[in-house]
């Protein structure tokens, strides 16, 4: 190497495309981000339901039958798991983004919200009153 050249040759390895597979933490991050895929499926179901409701009782029944199909059922179980996983991560992040109260309290409060909403809906829709 010539004496004029200062010899420095910084080496920056290319950023790996599969970076997210390298550590468990990153895999969980990707999983969190991926929860929106089943969510999209369920939102699709809801839009289909809304359409069916507008089309009259026959179409509505079709939608109800669709929702009870095994593959739909299984996919939605997956969506439920995804939504709960999302909820867990989201609730834990929230107190760090808006530190309004002690984190544990905020997390508990949010879960309470989810449970109350779920019970409310089940009671309302299931007619359990």
């Amino acid at each position: 190497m010539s004496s004029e050249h200062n010899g420095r040759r910084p080496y920056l390895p290319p950023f790996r495309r599969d970076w997210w597979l390298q550590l468990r933490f990153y895999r969980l991050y990707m999983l969190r981000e991926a929860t929106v895929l089943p969510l999209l499926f369920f939102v699709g179901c809801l839009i289909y339901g809304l359409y069916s409701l507008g089309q009259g009782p026959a179409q509505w029944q079709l939608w109800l039958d669709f929702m009870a199909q095994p593959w739909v059922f299984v996919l939605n179980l997956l969506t439920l798991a995804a939504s709960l996983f999302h909820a867990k991560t989201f609730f834990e992040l929230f107190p760090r983004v808006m530190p309004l109260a002690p984190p544990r309290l905020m997390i508990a409060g949010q879960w309470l919200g989810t449970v109350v909403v779920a019970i409310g809906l089940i009671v309302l829709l299931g007619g359990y009153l």
Partner: protein
Amino acid sequence: MTQTIVIARYNPELDEKPHQETYQVQSDDNTSVLDALQQVQQQDPSFSFRWSCRMAICGSCGVMVNGVPKLGCQTFLRDYPVGLVITPLSNFAVEKDLIVNMEPFLEHLSAIKPWLINTAEGTQPHVQTPKQLAKYQQFANCINCGLCYSACPQFGLNPEFRGPAALALAHRYNLDSRDQGKAQRMPELNAKNGVWTCTFVGFCSEVCPKKVDPAAAINQGKVESAKDMIVSAFKPTGAR
């Protein structure tokens, strides 16, 4: 006892790119990665790495241990019975062996105006209650080790991203009751390479040796930036 460690070596004057080499070091219950690196340096004086305080406060000795950013002086061989692979901090350019180019980090740090902005003159201390102090104290504990930059894939994908430590520092001054410089700092935060590159991966906070929680700082910064956008929308055009 002797333990085997693997270290990435790179000599820019000889090597095309980094390669890994294996070394034997003496270790006991208290042997830190830094101790081990020093032993390797005794075997091969051309081996280069940074260190200084050996008590986790100067921020010099960051390296990757099995792919995770760590302070060498605060990481112990006893915790790695399966062995260690020590490589330079990710997402920075390697200069030699474990030494990386920290200049981009310092540029990002300077860009957010990390100093108290307050034009009032005075010869007495400001009044600041413990409560006001507590608001920003955590974010003032950053030792500039850069581990969070190696942990953050968004920085890896976009080196223009100001990054966790710099944005945490901006937030630290913005939260300081004595500071009046928020308006001057917001443009950097509002920009694409400011808080908005972060997707809350959160690994930055996980690896931070000083529990600064830069992820929280950045995401609180997003709230501030969003508020700033609304406020600016109602300001007459032309106003800064």
